[in-house]
């Protein structure tokens, strides 16, 4: 697979928006995972016209590789401006790969309360899962080799690129 065959982020976002529209209500919460997931969440939050405030999560304090790699030097703040108890949450990330980020994000969400329902929407779902995590909404499926790496750059413009690991 090469960059030429990838749809643009705008194209993927409009597919996601159509799929998400019947799944959310005016009371639903959208929460993005730093950094790429927040960019995607901002765009979807705007196009879906939700009245609730957008949330963001930095999962650094919940990573399972802390004892190996330590804290990310630029930890951002998690910001969940709405009460999450009993709420319907759409968690948003840019790339679903191993599933470890989503595991950490769910742990963090539960530190704020007990949500009613949590679903997951991702811009890109790629191969390489290491945990039983699936997305409810997928913008783009990518079958990739282990030595390939997909990255979202942004926030303006938002672009997807695939590189080989050195």
């Amino acid at each position, binding site marked *: 697979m090469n960059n030429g065959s990838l749809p643009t982020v705008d194209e993927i976002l409009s597919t996601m928006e159509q799929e998400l529209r019947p799944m959310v209500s005016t009371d639903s919460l959208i929460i993005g995972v730093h950094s790429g997931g927040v960019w995607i969440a901002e765009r979807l939050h705007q196009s879906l016209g939700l009245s609730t405030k957008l949330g963001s999560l930095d999962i650094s304090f919940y990573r399972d590789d802390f004892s190996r*790699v330590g*804290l990310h030097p630029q930890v951002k703040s998690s910001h969940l401006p709405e009460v999450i108890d009993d709420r319907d949450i759409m968690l948003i990330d840019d790339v679903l790969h191993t599933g470890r*980020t989503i595991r950490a994000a769910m742990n963090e969400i539960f530190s704020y309360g007990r949500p009613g329902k949590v679903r997951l929407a991702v811009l890109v779902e790629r191969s390489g899962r290491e945990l039983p995590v699936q997305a409810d909404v997928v913008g783009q499926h990518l079958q990739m080799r282990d030595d390939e790496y997909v990255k979202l750059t942004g926030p303006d413009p938002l672009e997807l690129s695939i590189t080989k690991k050195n």
Partner: protein
Amino acid sequence: MPNPDIQHDSNGALKHFLTIEGLSRETIYDILDVANNFFNFGQREIKKVPLLRGKTVVNLFFEDSTRTRTTFEIAAKRLSADVININVPRSSVSKGETMLDTIRTLEAMHTDMFVVRHTSSGAAHLIAQHVPEHVRIINAGDGRHSHPTQAMLDMFTIRQYKGDFTPLRVAIVGDILHSRVARSQIHALKILGAAEVRVIAPRTLLPTGIESLGVTPFTDMREGLDDIDVVIMLRLQLERMEGQLVASEQEYFSHYGLTEEKLGYAKPDAVVMHPGPMNRGLEITSSVADSDKSLILPQVTNGIAVRMAIMARIMGGSSEGAGQ
């Protein structure tokens, strides 16, 4: 003084937290930024994160402490560590065991981190030199030498209320001679580029050669507090004084006790700090300590977030960054 470099590993990563000396401005800001995240935990239902889950932290205090030991304990618990508090005056040391034997005994129980306070300068450094590779040491105050986590929480508090350090003029007032807090604060303020750091004290409580740390000494409060943004009062450490260093408590108070009148010499928006415990009516009046210019209670609260950030920083793996 002990070699501060043992607090970094061979890759330059921070491994122990023993002294402010030798820390880069970037490292200090990284820790303050992470602390800021922990500070915002007040809004959360569950104030714990799992970073130190399964780790054992021993608070080993060879000297009394209330707020430092308590905030270290809360900090470690918020990081999900198991915490043991040992007050040594009441344990085996009074039966003749040496400090290193105490450490080895506790190590044998698979301790991952020691938070050490000791009356002797260099105690935490000495311990750091004798523990196995995986064990981390935090200096919670050693003699007159250093109290680096207190200085970090003071820097956090100053940044919270004043922002940028570079235009700030800071005065540290009182018993400089016996103060490990003052030494650590001076190093931190110099690394962070504060415009001016002054020390104000009677000559008998000013260490000789203090100017070599890059500070300006004053013996008069009116001159010393002129144009000051941050006033840090120190406790008069009467218990450490040998011989007659201050004429009388009344005379000390009349010259150096921070009253509203003396605070008037500083800038109108100056803030007042004190590492605690305070001698009310000796180095500071209640009317100043309890005023809206006082940051004394925020200092205590901030101590938790800052100590969480320091523990997280030294307990994490040492390789660069984190992946996808």
